[in-house]
C-alpha cells in the first residue's frame, strides 16, 4: 500500500484491484491452505483432490518429498522423515532429547540455538522443514489462483510463546511468503463460525489438535472479536492419546513402554500408527481389532471404546482444568458462554465431545469440518488484510498468552507484561548502571507464569550497548518492551538524560539470529535464481513510484496545513533524491532513498493519522461502536 494513504471508512483505496491472499493452517499432523474466491471460502486440494497435506517431509538422497509421498517413508525410514515438526518449533536441543517423540531423529551437535536434524540430504532445522511444507502449500495456491500471492495469514496455537511464533514467521520468510499476520488458531475458528452465524455473545473455542491444546474465550460484537483470555498446553494433543493407547498395546504384548524403545524407531512409529487408527475407528464403532506384524512385535488384540476412554480420560481432564483456569482469567462462568466451537481433528474423539459438552453445559458446535475451520478463518482474515474488503468491519483484538518478564536478582522473574493483556502492548521500565563508566548491560527476558526464572521459558538475552558513560547509578535507561500484533517482542532502549538510543543485540535462546536467517535465505532456492535481482529492482521501482504518487496526493491535500515550511522543505529534498535515483538500476539505492523519504515523513504521517481520526470522529457518532445489549 502506498505511503501516507489512509483509507477512510466507506471509501475504497486506490482503483480497486483484487489481490491474491491465502490463509494457511500449519498443523502438527496436517496442513491446509484456503482462499476466498468470488466471495466463497474454500480449502484448496492437490491434483488428487486431497485437501489435507500431511505435515511430513522426507529428505531423500536426490529429492525432498512433502505430504503424502513422504508419509510412506515415515515407517520405513524414520531417520530421514520428519513428522510433527510443529512440536519442535522454537524448542532447544534439551527439549528434544527429553521427549520420546523425537527419539527417532539424530541431532547435530553445534553452537546454534536451533537444533538440527541429521538427514541424508544434510542437516535441517524445524524452521526449514516447516518452510518446505509452507512452500508446497504456496505452490498449490499459486497454481490454483494463477498468480503470486500478495500476502498470507498463517495460524499458530494461541498458546505459542514468542520463540515458537518467531520460528513460524522465519519459516514463512524462507518459503518466500509475505506474512500479513500470525493469527491465533482459536480466533481464526471463531471468525469462520462468526461470519456464518452473525450472532453476538461470548464463545469458547476448544481446539485440540495433534500436538497442541488451546482454549480461548472470545466476545463477539458487531464484527469485533475480542479475546478475553486464552490458555492451554502447547505440548498436549491427539498424539498423546496415541501414546497412551500405544503404551497399552505394548503392555498387552508384554513389552515395556514406548519410551524404552528409542533404539527402534520403526517399532515406535508402527505402534503409534496402529494406535491412531484404532482411536479413529473407535469414533465410529464400539470396538476395533488391532493386528501388528513387525520385527520384534507380533500382536493381535481388541480395543474397546470403554477401555480407550479410560486410557485417555486423564488427558481430557487436563484440558478441562485448563478450561476452568481460562474462564477464571476471563472473569466469566459457564453460564456466560453462548457457544462452544470445536476445532482440531482430536475433537472427533467422542469422549472429548461428551466431556466438553458436560463441562460447558451446552452442545458443542461442529458444523464446520474441525480440520478445515482454522484455515477457513485465516483465509477470511487474509482477504480483509490484503485490502480486498476495505469496508469490512472485521476487527480482531487478541491477547498475549503468556506473561513476559525479566530476570532480576536471585534468579527471580519480574513480570513486565501480564498474560491476557490485549496486544499490541508496550511497557517501559527504567534501569540504571551499577558501575562507573558502564556502557553496556544485559537484560534476560523470559516468558511464563512462574516466579523463578528457571521455571519460565527463556526467550532471549538483549544486550544494550552505547550507553553514554556516567557515574554509577546516574544513567537512566528506559527500556521499552513492545509486543506487536503478532505477539512478538521487540526491545528498544534509550538513555533518558542524553536521549541516546542504545543499540540492542538480540541473542534468542531458541531461535535463529539475523545472520543465520540471512544465510538460510541465501541458500534457499528462491534466492539463488538469477532473475532475483531483476525482480527486486522492478519491485523497488514500482514501490518508489507508488510512494511518490501517494506523497504528492497527500501534500496537495494537506501538506500546507500540517507541515511547517522547513519540514516541507526537507520532505521535498528527500522526494527529489528518490526521483533522481529511481532509474539508476540499483535496487539497494532506491530502497535506501525510499527509506530516507519515509523517515523524513514520519511526523507528517503521524499528524495525518491523528487528523484523520479527528475528522472521522466529527463525522460519525461514536454510538455506532457501542456494545449490543443482550
Amino acid at each position: 500500500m502506498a505511503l501516507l494513504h489512509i483509507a477512510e471508512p466507506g471509501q475504497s483505496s486506490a482503483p480497486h484491484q483484487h489481490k491474491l491472499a491465502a490463509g494457511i493452517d500449519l498443523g502438527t499432523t496436517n496442513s491446509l491452505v484456503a482462499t476466498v474466491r468470488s466471495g466463497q471460502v474454500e480449502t484448496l486440494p492437490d491434483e488428487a483432490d486431497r485437501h489435507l497435506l500431511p505435515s511430513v517431509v522426507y529428505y531423500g538422497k536426490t529429492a525432498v518429498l512433502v505430504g503424502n509421498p513422504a508419509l510412506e517413508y515415515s515407517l520405513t525410514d524414520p531417520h530421514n522423515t520428519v513428522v510433527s515438526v510443529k512440536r519442535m518449533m522454537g524448542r532447544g536441543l534439551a527439549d528434544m532429547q527429553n521427549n520420546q517423540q523425537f527419539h527417532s531423529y539424530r541431532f547435530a551437535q553445534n553452537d546454534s540455538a536451533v537444533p538440527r536434524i541429521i538427514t541424508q540430504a544434510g542437516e535441517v532445522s524445524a524452521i526449514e522443514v516447516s518452510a518446505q511444507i509452507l512452500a508446497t502449500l504456496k505452490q498449490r495456491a499459486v497454481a490454483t489462483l494463477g498468480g503470486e500471492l500478495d500476502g498470507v495469514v498463517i495460524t499458530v496455537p494461541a498458546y505459542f510463546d514468542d520463540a515458537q511464533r518467531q520460528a513460524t514467521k522465519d519459516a514463512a520468510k524462507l518459503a518466500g511468503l509475505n506474512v500479513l499476520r500470525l493469527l491465533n488458531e482459536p480466533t481464526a475458528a471463531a471468525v469462520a463460525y462468526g461470519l456464518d452465524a452473525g450472532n453476538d455473545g461470548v464463545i469458547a473455542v476448544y481446539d485440540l489438535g495433534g500436538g497442541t491444546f488451546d482454549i480461548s474465550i472470545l466476545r463477539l460484537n458487531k464484527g469485533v472479536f475480542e479475546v478475553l483470555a486464552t490458555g492451554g498446553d502447547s505440548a498436549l494433543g491427539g498424539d498423546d492419546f496415541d501414546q497412551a493407547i500405544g503404551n497399552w498395546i505394548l503392555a498387552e504384548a508384554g513389552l515395556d513402554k514406548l519410551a524404552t524403545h528409542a533404539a527402534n524407531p520403526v517399532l515406535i512409529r508402527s505402534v503409534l500408527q496402529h494406535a491412531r487408527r484404532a482411536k479413529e475407528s473407535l469414533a465410529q464403532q464400539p470396538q476395533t481389532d488391532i493386528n501388528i506384524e513387525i520385527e520384534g512385535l507380533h500382536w493381535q488384540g481388541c480395543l474397546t471404546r470403554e477401555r480407550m476412554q479410560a486410557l485417555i480420560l486423564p488427558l481430557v481432564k487436563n484440558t478441562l482444568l485448563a478450561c476452568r483456569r481460562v474462564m477464571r482469567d476471563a472473569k466469566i462462568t459457564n453460564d456466560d458462554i453462548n457457544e462452544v466451537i470445536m476445532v482440531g481433528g482430536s475433537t472427533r474423539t467422542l469422549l472429548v465431545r461428551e466431556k466438553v459438552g458436560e463441562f460447558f453445559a451446552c452442545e458443542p458446535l461442529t458444523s464446520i469440518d474441525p480440520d478445515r475451520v482454522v484455515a477457513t478463518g485465516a483465509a477470511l482474515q487474509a482477504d480483509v488484510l490484503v485490502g480486498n474488503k476495505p469496508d469490512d468491519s472485521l476487527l480482531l483484538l487478541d491477547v498475549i498468552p503468556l506473561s513476559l518478564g525479566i530476570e532480576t536478582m536471585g534468579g527471580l522473574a519480574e513480570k513486565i507484561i501480564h498474560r491476557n493483556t490485549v496486544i499490541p502492548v508496550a511497557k517501559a521500565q527504567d534501569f540504571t548502571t551499577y558501575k562507573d563508566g558502564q556502557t553496556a548491560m544485559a537484560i534476560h527476558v523470559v516468558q511464563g507464569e512462574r516466579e523463578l526464572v528457571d521455571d519460565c521459558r527463556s526467550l532471549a538475552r538483549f544486550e544494550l550497548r552505547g550507553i553514554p558513560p556516567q557515574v554509577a547509578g546516574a544513567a537512566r535507561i528506559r527500556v521499552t518492551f513492545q509486543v506487536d500484533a503478532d505477539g512478538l517482542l521487540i526491545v528498544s532502549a534509550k538513555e533518558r538524560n542524553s536521549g541516546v538510543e542504545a543499540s540492542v543485540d538480540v541473542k534468542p535462546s531458541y531461535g535463529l539470529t539475523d545472520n543465520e536467517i540471512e544465510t538460510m535465505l541465501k541458500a534457499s532456492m528462491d534466492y539463488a535464481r538469477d532473475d532475483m535481482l531483476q525482480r527486486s529492482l522492478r519491485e523497488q521501482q514500482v514501490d518508489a513510484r507508488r510512494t511518490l504518487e501517494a506523497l504528492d496526493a497527500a501534500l496537495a491535500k494537506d501538506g500546507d496545513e500540517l507541515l511547517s515550511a522547513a519540514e516541507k522543505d526537507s520532505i521535498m529534498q528527500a522526494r527529489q533524491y528518490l526521483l533522481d535515483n529511481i532509474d539508476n538500476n540499483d535496487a539497494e539505492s532506491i530502497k535506501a532513498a525510499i527509506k530516507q523519504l519515509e523517515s523524513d515523513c514520519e511526523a507528517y504521517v503521524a499528524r495525518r493519522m491523528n487528523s484523520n481520526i479527528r475528522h472521522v470522529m466529527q463525522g460519525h457518532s461514536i454510538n455506532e461502536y457501542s456494545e449490543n445489549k443482550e
Partner: protein
Amino acid sequence: MSTTHDILTASFFELFDVPVSYDVDLTKVQQCYRFLQSQLHPDKFASAEATQKRLSMQMTSRINEALQTLTDPVLRAAYMLELKGVDINLDNETTVDAEFLMQQLELRESMETIKHNQDGEGALDKLDELSQQVKQQVKKAMQHFSAAYSKMQLDTAREWLRKLQFLQKAEKEIDVLSAQIEDDLMI
C-alpha cells in the same frame, strides 16, 4: 498542531473524550476504544509501509494501555494522582490506619484457616463469602477516593489508593486460593 487528539501524547481521558473523573463513564470509554481500534489497529495497516505500521502499533499500544488504566480501579486512581504530580510510589510505605490494618490481618487469618481446615466444597463457599466482603470494602474505598480527589484532598486520596492496593491484592489471593481448591476437586 492541535494536541487534543494526538494519540501518542493526549491524556488517557482526552483519548477517550471523557472528563477527568474517578467515576468515569466506562460505557463511553469502551465505545471510544472500539472506535479508535477500528481506525488504528495494525490490521488496518497490514499492507502499509513501515512508518505507518509502526505508528499504528505504537498508537494502539497506547490506546490499550489507556483502556487498561481507566477500567482498573487501582490503576485509574494512581494515574489520576500522577496527573496531579503526586508521587505514587507506595512500595515502601505502610498504611497508618490501625483499624484497616486489623481488618486485613483478620482477612488473611480467615484465608489461612480455610486453607487448612475445610473440605473442598465448604472452603469454596467460605472463600466466596470473603470475596464478597472484600468487594464491599473496595466499593467503599473507591467512593472515598473519588470524594477526596474531587475536593483536591490529594493526601487523603493517596491514602485511599494505598488501601485499594491492599484490597486488590487480597482479592487476587482469594482468587488464587479458590483456583487451587477447584483444581484439586477436579482431579
